[in-house]
């Protein structure tokens, strides 16, 4: 089956954090096209998700740069190479198919390339479970930690928990289609875009949704079907519960790719940053070799060396020529500056 997003390219990069993004640049200088897959709905990885506003002080030549600024600058730097992004998708499997690798995402997208680069940092971001005893019995039935299909919530009595952008955005997006909506958060203090908070409060003032400032104490229900979320402000009757308690990182399906691992990290050589499978590379925080340092700058270096071998695999009949961006008119043309 050939879906519209299915395609074949030179290199597929798993993870669109700073190291995955810079790898696009190094591959691009060698005329290799890259496609990136990331479970987050935006590029930047940990820099964008965990600390967009925190300054980083150890990026060469940038005495101080925030996680988001670094992401934005890398996006600008790789723009000439026009990479394809598959965001909000998790890589589920990797299999050899003749001369190429076939990678399948949880949305059923099939991508093929002779080279795979795992730049997945600390692993894939997955939702944190709320600290509610017995909630596992309801997960995937009436309790969710992410919205995959909005229809799941149509005409339902929905309770949303959390005080960040996800809780606010989904309150605003789902309010028009649910029967009743209650948002519960511990304090009247929000880690979300001020405009979203303002719009939520307008809906509350207009009687279109309810806001409860309180603490969740438990869950009531039967056979996976939630009937109420219990709180110190009384029971919130509902038949769907959405909890947004932030994200944590787990190695995820990468652990099942059959690669040699070293304590949840992928073992690579330090010449090509290749894993135990030819054509599969690992760079950045997720790779391991003697002396490895989990620094963004180390990941940049690893990406540059990986790209040399990726070229040899993708273009076996062409000669690899090492050139500098300062002097090569060929590279400058690729960068759009010549």
């Amino acid at each position, binding site marked *: 089956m050939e879906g519209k997003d299915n395609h074949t390219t030179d290199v597929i990069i798993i993870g669109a954090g700073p190291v995955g993004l810079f790898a696009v640049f190094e591959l691009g200088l060698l005329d290799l096209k890259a496609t990136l897959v990331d479970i987050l709905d935006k590029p930047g990885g940990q820099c964008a998700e*965990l*600390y967009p506003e*925190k300054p980083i002080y150890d990026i060469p030549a940038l005495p101080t740069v925030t996680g988001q600024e670094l992401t934005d600058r890398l996006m600008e730097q790789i723009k000439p190479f026009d990479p394809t992004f598959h965001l909000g998708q998790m890589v589920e499997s990797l299999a050899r198919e003749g001369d190429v690798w076939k990678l399948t995402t949880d949305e059923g997208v099939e991508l093929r390339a002779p080279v795979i680069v795992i730049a997945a940092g600390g692993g894939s971001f997955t939702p*944190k*479970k709320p*600290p509610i005893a017995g909630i596992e019995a309801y997960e995937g039935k009436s309790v969710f930690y992410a919205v995959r299909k909005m229809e799941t919530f149509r005409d339902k009595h929905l309770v949303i928990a959390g005080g960040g952008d996800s809780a606010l955005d989904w309150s605003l997006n789902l309010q028009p289609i649910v029967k009743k909506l209650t948002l519960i958060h511990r304090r009247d203090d929000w880690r979300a875009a001020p405009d979203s908070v303002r719009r939520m409060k307008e809906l509350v003032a207009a009687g279109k949704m309810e806001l409860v400032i309180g603490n969740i104490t438990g869950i009531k229900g039967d056979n996976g079907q939630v009937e109420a979320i219990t709180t110190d402000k009384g029971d919130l009757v509902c038949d769907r519960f959405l909890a947004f308690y932030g994200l944590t990182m787990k190695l995820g399906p990468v652990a099942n790719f059959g690669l040699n691992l070293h304590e*949840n990290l992928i073992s690579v050589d330090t010449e090509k940053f290749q894993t135990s499978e030819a054509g599969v590379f690992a760079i950045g925080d997720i790779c391991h070799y003697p002396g490895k340092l989990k620094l963004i700058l180390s990941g940049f270096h690893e990406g540059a060396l990986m790209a040399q071998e990726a070229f040899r695999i993708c273009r076996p009949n062409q000669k690899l020529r090492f050139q500098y961006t300062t002097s090569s008119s060929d590279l400058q043309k690729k960068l759009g500056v010549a």
Partner: protein
Amino acid sequence: MKVIATDQNGVRHELEAIEGWRIMEILRDYGLPIKAECGGCCCCATCHVYVDEKWIPKLYPPKPEEEDLLADAVDTKPNSRLSCQLLMSAELDGIEVTLAESARP
């Protein structure tokens, strides 16, 4: 200057600490099982420790962000703290902490 850390398996470790270091960084430096996935940004709760009661009065109280993160952790107790928010000082020489199960990598 010392930090006395008990890991999730009940093993006691006496760690040499450095003034001004975050306790999370000292635990990590000695290779104790602590995830600390956000790297000290006070935006996860994977450096969660229990501080021995007698040391609590010597600590700066938690900021609201730290309280929020601890409230969302599964194994929070009244003496829970995020070790990235605890800076070593002479006053804390000998502080005893126990690593929470939820901080395991």
